[in-house]
């Protein structure tokens, strides 16, 4: 049985996706409008599909046939959206600490420093969220998503809109993490070097699944051919 099986119909769009998460990194690749973000929102628990089943590591998060749906905050899933929604009334430190209030003050401070350190953002700790740049916001959002130690991380085009240096720095830091990830992108250059499996999503349907370079080789050749014209 696949880990993820989702059927969801919107007014002019139908998502019908079925795949397993066999690698530590799985990239969901596809053009804009393919249904990548809807897929992530359903996995995160922010939207309920018409029907479906989601299981991670033997734990069932959603099973519409048996009326099971674990609420968003209890799925042990971190989710970083394309536009990181940092709480604007809080500092970077307070944003990261939002989900770990149950820890005592000392352990919480340690965890926040550790998470910010993972993304080279320790110096930003006391900066109010509205005073952070685009790249800094992404670093803090990643640290915040990882603070409660989720089993799975969903990343929706986390490097979109960043300059090359920032994007490469964040990507190299992500690659060091020991967390399973589902990474959404429509940028082939960004994901080409990732040691990942890929789910190719087009118009709401999975059209190919397999090792990233194998599945996207034809796509890459096509792009290179277009560039050489």
């Amino acid at each position, binding site marked *: 049985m696949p880990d993820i099986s989702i059927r969801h119909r919107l007014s002019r769009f139908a998502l019908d996706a079925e795949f397993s998460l066999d690698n530590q990194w799985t990239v969901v690749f596809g053009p804009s409008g393919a249904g990548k973000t809807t897929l992530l929102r359903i996995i995160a*628990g922010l939207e309920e599909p018409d029907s479906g089943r989601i299981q991670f590591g033997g734990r069932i998060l959603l099973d519409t046939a048996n009326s099971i749906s674990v609420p*968003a*905050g*209890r799925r042990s*899933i971190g989710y970083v959206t394309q*536009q990181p*929604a940092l*709480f604007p009334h809080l500092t970077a430190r307070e944003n990261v600490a939002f989900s770990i209030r149950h820890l005592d003050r000392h352990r919480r401070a340690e965890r926040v420093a550790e998470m910010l350190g993972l993304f080279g953002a320790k110096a930003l700790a006391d900066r109010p969220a509205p005073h952070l740049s685009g790249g800094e916001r992404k670093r803090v959002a990643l640290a915040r998503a990882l603070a409660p130690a989720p089993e799975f991380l969903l990343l929706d085009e986390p490097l979109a809109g960043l300059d090359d240096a920032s994007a490469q720095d964040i990507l190299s830091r992500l690659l060091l993490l020991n967390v399973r990830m589902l990474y959404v992108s429509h940028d082939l250059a960004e994901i080409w070097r990732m040691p990942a499996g890929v789910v190719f999503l087009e118009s709401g349907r999975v059209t190919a699944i397999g090792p990233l370079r194998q599945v996207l080789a034809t796509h890459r050749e096509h792009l290179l051919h277009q560039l050489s014209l």
Partner: protein
Amino acid sequence: MDLQALWLTLRLAATTTILLLAIGIPLAYWLASTRARWRSIVEAITTLPILLPPTVLGFYLLVLLGPHTAFGRLTSRLLGHPLAFSFSGLVIGSVLYSLPFAVQPLTAGFRAIDAALIEQGRLLGAGGFRILTGIFLPLSVHSVVAAAALCFTHTVGEFGVVLMIGGDIPGATRTLSIAIYDQVQEFSYSAANRTSLLLVSISALALVLLYMRHTRDGTHHA
């Protein structure tokens, strides 16, 4: 100057404002977050007091709190006195009459919050109460202050509801607006003028403080 009426008016306005924030904040939170079909019915009911003539609201409350209804008899037995023509009765009337002045700015403030922030709160494990206190309220301070100022000034200037439910008992139900009415009836125009100026000053002061806060915060964020 009727100092007793002034004290009673301020006490009534402060009590009403505190109660309205306690009722209005969870109600507005529910209105802003729910997709329930009967949300529009609840919203219409909370807005109704704006359209009702105060005397109509006051009349129905007088009947409800009086000895001819089960509610009136029950509260009378529990409190040892009827709610009608008492300070507690005035508070109930004021809360109902000013309810839209609390709920509307609060609901508008809560609805203006970016839905992505609420979703992040949910994803990070926050329940309804934490989302209210950790996200909604800190991001809607202006709306809370506006609701409090509107409730306070609206209650200070109340006349119809207060007269119908409370009558004109010095020290118990006579507020400044009733005192003005009495002074006019007695042709004490200079006394009515002084009391009116006091009412205008209280309302103007509350609004100036409100707008000063808006301006200060606006400058700070710019």
